């Protein structure tokens, strides 16, 4: 029965991937890509990786899909004369994709059995961190440096998006609100955010001991903020506002500060003093959740569209 479910899931994923690659219009391809993200999330559930599944559904399906849809709408307005790729480009992309897939398949099929794993060591050291979710322990204790760099990359991406704004609009606010806001959308934007914020806080809090964590919580917070901005209930903030910029960097800044304090308190960069690891990790996570939410919200909002006020 479970094998049947897996086969159907894999067949659906392959069919959707083909559909995305073959879709004639960009919008259809993006919608297919969003569905692909959610289905891939189900695949991760089948592999018992709930943390990855949540992130895939939130980031791979949700945020990336919304980002692509906005880019598509943007490029459609000011369409370049010829946007269709030449056959040679398509063929090159296909060959590259097939090479990557074949390479990955070759590597995975050639792993020794059982494959080398750090899982027992990670589980054995879990007590020292005070956490119960091994994924969070990997992200914020064992491999904290990777996570720190990942958050910095997010902010660099936002700088890249902002720099698309023309000079006279620099520092102004992006525009998300459509010309006419449909009634149901503004209703949803009034009703949903309280629940969304509650779920985000829960997601963050439960992440220490169960699947969940900063990225998922931050994405939900960002979604609620975007909903409010899309419905025009609150305008997007000026990108030069100091509070906005402080919120963007508070997560990585706290993370870095704790990292350097590690030299003084525990004898190494990003080392946590024994016994105090859990409260420190929770503090970092709280700051990170806020920064991720603001960064993702501003990423989707796009470059400035209005001149800065005052």
């Amino acid at each position, binding site marked *: 029965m479970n094998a049947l479910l897996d086969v159907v899931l894999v067949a659906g994923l392959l069919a959707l991937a083909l559909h995305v690659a073959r879709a004639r219009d960009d919008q259809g391809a993006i919608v297919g890509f969003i569905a692909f993200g959610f289905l891939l999330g189900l695949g991760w559930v089948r592999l018992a990786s709930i943390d990855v599944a949540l992130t895939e559904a939130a980031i791979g399906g949700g945020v990336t899909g919304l980002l692509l849809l906005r880019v598509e709408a943007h490029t459609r307005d000011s369409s370049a004369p010829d946007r269709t790729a030449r056959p040679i480009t398509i063929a090159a992309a296909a060959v590259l994709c097939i090479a990557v897939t074949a390479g990955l398949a070759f590597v995975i099929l050639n792993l020794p059995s059982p494959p080398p794993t750090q899982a027992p060591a990670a589980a054995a050291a879990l007590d020292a961190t005070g956490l119960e979710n091994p994924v969070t322990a990997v992200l914020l204790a064992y491999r904290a440096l990777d996570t720190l760099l990942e958050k910095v990359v997010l902010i660099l991406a936002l700088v890249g998006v902002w720099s698309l704004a023309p000079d006279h609009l620099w520092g102004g606010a992006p525009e998300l609100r459509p010309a006419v806001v*449909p*009634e*149901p*959308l503004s209703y*949803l934007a009034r009703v949903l955010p309280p*629940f969304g914020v509650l779920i985000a806080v829960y997601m963050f809090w439960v992440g220490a001991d169960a699947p969940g964590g900063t990225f998922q919580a931050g994405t939900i917070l960002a979604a609620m903020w975007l909903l409010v901005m899309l419905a025009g209930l609150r305008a997007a903030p000026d990108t030069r506002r100091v509070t906005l910029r402080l919120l963007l960097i508070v997560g990585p800044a706290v993370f870095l500060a704790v990292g350097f304090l590690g030299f003084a308190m525990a004898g190494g960069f990003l080392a946590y003093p024994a016994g105090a690891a859990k409260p420190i990790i929770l503090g970092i996570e709280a700051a990170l959740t806020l920064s991720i939410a603001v960064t993702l919200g501003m990423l989707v909002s796009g470059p400035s569209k209005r001149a800065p006020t005052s």
Partner: protein
Amino acid sequence: MTGFVDAFTVLAVGSGAIFFLAGTLGLLRFPDTLSRLHALSKADNLGLGLIVIGLLPHATSVSAGLKLACVWLLAQLSAATASQLIAGVARNRRPRA
């Protein structure tokens, strides 16, 4: 007693699955956007609702049961909003077509 509960679960989840099947059929076969939306939202609301009701007796704790109910309510809210939005677009397009 557990036999009764299991039978109830099978009945409720089975009916929910039938609603999803009917909704999918309607989505594929109905002629226009509004009827297709109707089929889709029926599957979401009733199908998911029946599945949640069927699973409720198996919830390990009260909070787990509440989470199940919340999933249904949130899915209903988003499905209703999405249907309204799509229906609005479909209605605006019709005179031009």
